[in-house]
C-alpha cells in the first residue's frame, strides 16, 4: 500500500502569516501532547491523519502555552486566567476560529471556560473531528488491523460526563473492529482513570489501591487485546495499570488517533 513516505513539515501559524495564509483550523497540541513522550506519539499520528485528509490546519508551536486546566483545578485561579487570556490573545492575533485538540481537558477548558474571557471558538475533540472526516468521506478506513481481537474503550471523564461525547469514539472504533466490548462501567458510568483534577501532577492520597489499578481491572475482566482511550492522561494511567497487572506484553493501550493511523498504515 505505502508507496512512498514523505516528510511532514508541520505548518506553524506564525510562518503561515508571513506567507499570507490563514489556516482554517488550529491544531492545539497541548502541554501533554507536546512534552509527554507517550502523548507525543499520539500527536504525530493525529497530524498524519490531518495530512492524509488534507485538512487546512496549523499549530502554534512555541507560541502555544499551557491551557491552565490543571492550575485551575489545583486552585490557582490567577494562573489559569493568565494562561487563558494569553492564549486568547494569540488566537485573536491569528484570527483563529476553529480549534481541534486530542486532550479532553484542554478541550473542556477552551470550549467551556475560555468564553468567560471573550474567547468563543468552534472546538473539536479529535474523536469528534475524525468521526466527521469519516462521515464526510474525507477519510476512508483502509483495513481492520485488529482482526477479531477484543477491544474495549475507556471514556475519559472530561470527554464523557463532562461534554457528553460518548458515541463518536465508538463510531470510530467500530470502523476498525467488529469486536468492541464494553466494560461494566461505561459511558456516563465510566470510572475515572485517576489523573483528572490535577492528580496527574501530585502523589495520590493513601488508600487501598490506586484508581488506575481499579480502572484497569475493569478492562482486564474483558480479556481485551487493546484498550483504547482518547486522552493523554488516561493513556498514562492505563499504561501504568496494565504494567502493574503485568499485562504489558499481551495488551496494548492505544489512542483513537493511533488505531486510525494503523488501519491506514500512515
Amino acid at each position, binding site marked *: 500500500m505505502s*508507496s*512512498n*513516505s*514523505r*516528510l*511532514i513539515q*508541520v505548518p*506553524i501559524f506564525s510562518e503561515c502569516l508571513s506567507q499570507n495564509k490563514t489556516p482554517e483550523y488550529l491544531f492545539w*497540541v497541548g*502541554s501533554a501532547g*507536546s*512534552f509527554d513522550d507517550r502523548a*507525543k506519539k499520539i500527536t504525530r499520528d493525529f*497530524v*498524519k491523519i490531518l*495530512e492524509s485528509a488534507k485538512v487546512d490546519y496549523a499549530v502554534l*508551536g*512555541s507560541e502555544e*502555552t*499551557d491551557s*491552565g486546566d490543571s*492550575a485551575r*483545578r*489545583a*486552585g490557582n*485561579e*490567577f*494562573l489559569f*486566567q*493568565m*494562561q487563558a*487570556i494569553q492564549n486568547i490573545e494569540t488566537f485573536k492575533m491569528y484570527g483563529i476560529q476553529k480549534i481541534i485538540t486530542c486532550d479532553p481537558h484542554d478541550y*473542556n477548558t477552551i470550549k*467551556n*471556560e475560555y468564553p468567560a474571557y471573550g474567547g468563543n471558538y468552534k472546538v473539536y475533540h479529535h474523536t469528534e473531528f475524525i468521526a466527521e472526516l469519516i462521515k464526510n468521506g474525507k477519510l476512508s478506513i483502509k483495513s481492520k488491523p485488529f482482526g477479531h481481537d477484543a477491544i474495549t474503550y475507556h471514556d475519559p*471523564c472530561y470527554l464523557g*460526563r*463532562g*461534554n457528553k461525547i460518548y458515541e463518536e469514539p465508538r463510531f470510530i472504533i467500530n470502523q476498525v473492529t467488529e469486536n468492541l466490548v464494553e466494560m461494566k462501567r461505561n459511558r*456516563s458510568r465510566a*470510572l*475515572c482513570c*485517576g*489523573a*483528572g*483534577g*490535577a492528580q*496527574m*501532577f*501530585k*502523589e*495520590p492520597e493513601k*488508600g*487501598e*489501591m490506586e*484508581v488506575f489499578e*481499579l*480502572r484497569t481491572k475493569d478492562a482486564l475482566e474483558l480479556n481485551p487485546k487493546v484498550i483504547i482511550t482518547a486522552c493523554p492522561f488516561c493513556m498514562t494511567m492505563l499504561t501504568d495499570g496494565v504494567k502493574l497487572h503485568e499485562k504489558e506484553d499481551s495488551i496494548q493501550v492505544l489512542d483513537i488517533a493511533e488505531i486510525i493511523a494503523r488501519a491506514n*498504515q*500512515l
Partner: protein
Amino acid sequence: MIKQLIFSLTVLIAASVFFYSVRNIWLNIKLLKPAYPLDRWNQRLGLLLNVGFGQTKILRFPLIGFLHALVFWGFLAILFGSAEMLIDGLFGLEKSLSILGIAHKALMFSGDLFAFIILILILVFLSRRMLMHVKRFEGIEMTHKTHKDATFALTLILLLMVSLLGMNMGYVANHTSHASIYPVSSLFVSIFWIDSPEFSHVFEQINWWAHILLIFFFANYLPYSKHFHVFMSLPNVLLSKLEPLTQMSNMDRVTQEVKLMLDPSAEIPSSHPNQIERFGMKDVEDGTWKHYIDSLTCTQCGRCTSVCPANLTGKMLSPRKLLIDYRARMNEKMPHLKADANFNDQKSLLDDYISREEIWACTTCNACAQECPVNIDHPSIILELRRYIFMEESKAPSLLNAMSTNIENNGAPWQYPPSDRMKWADQLYINE
C-alpha cells in the same frame, strides 16, 4: 363548627412553625454568595420534568430506583388528597374537591392504591436498612444520628399511609356506592369490618385527624431532617447549574485583577475596599446559596459515594460527607453569625469538618454529580476549598506548587522550555 375551629387553630400553629423554619433558611441564603444568574427557564423546566417529575436519575439504579420513583409519584397523588382535607377541615366540608368529577375519582383511586404500595415499600426500605447490610448506607459520615433520622422519617411515612387507608376504610364503609374509588380500602372493608355506621364514622374521624396531624408534624420535622428532600428536590433540580459538569465557575474578581496586571491602564470597576472577600471557601459563609440548598436537599442516599473513584479505592473522600458537613456547619455557625457579623468560634468548614486529605483526593471526575438524583454539585465545594488553600494560604501539595511554578515560568506543567514545544514534529514521515 367546633371541629372547624380546632382545625383552623392547628393549621395556624403548623403553618407558623413551618414559616419560621423557612424564614430561617431564607435568612441564611441571604448571607451567602451568589452562585449564578437564574436564566434559561425553558431548559430549567425541561430538567424539572425530566429529572424531577420523570425521576430519570434515580432510575439509574433500576430496581431500587423504580421503587423509590413509585413512592415519589404516589406522594404526588396523595398530596391532592391532603389539599382536599385541608379545605374540608377549614370550611367544614366533605370531599370538597369532588366537584372535579372524574379527575377527583382518578386521584382518589390512585391515592388509595399508592398508599398501600408505599406502605409496603416503606416496610421493604425499613427492613433493608435494619436487616440488610447495604454498603451505600455506611461510611464515616453515617452516624447513629443519621440512621435514626432515616428510620424515624420512614416510620412517620408508614403511619401516614396507615392512617390514610384507615380514613378511606371508614369512609367506604359508610359510602358503599363509592367503594370502587377506593380499591384497596374497600377490599379490606369487605374482608373484615364491624358492621356499624357509628363505628365506621368514628374510625374515619380518628384516622382523619391522625393523618392530618401527622402531615403537620411531618412537614415541620422535615426541615431538620435528611428527608427535607421531599420539599427540596424539585426546587433544587429546577435551580441546577446548566453548564457542562466539568465547567468551573469563573471568579470575576480574579478576572479584574488579571486584566489589571496585563494592562495597568485598564479601568477597574470600583470595589468596596473594606469588604475584602476571601478567595475560595474556608467556611460555610464563603459558599453560595446553591451549596446551601444542595446541602439541604441531600437525601444521604450515598449514590455519589458509591461511584466515587477515590472512595472506591479506599481514600478518605466521600462526596456525601461534604454535603452533610456543609449543612451541619451551617446549623452550627449561622445562628451566631446572624446575631454578630464578627462571630468567630475558631472553627471552620475546612479542617474542622472537611480535611485536606479529602479535598486533595478528588479527581474532579464528576461521577458523583452525574449520579446524584437531585442534581447536587459536589466538586464545586471541593474546588472552592482548593481555591482557598491555594490562593489564600499557599498550602497546596508541594508537587502542585511545582506544577504551577513551571507553568508560570515556561508555560508547561513540566520543566521544558517553550522552544521544545515542536520537538514532537521532528522526523515525522507519512506513508502516501
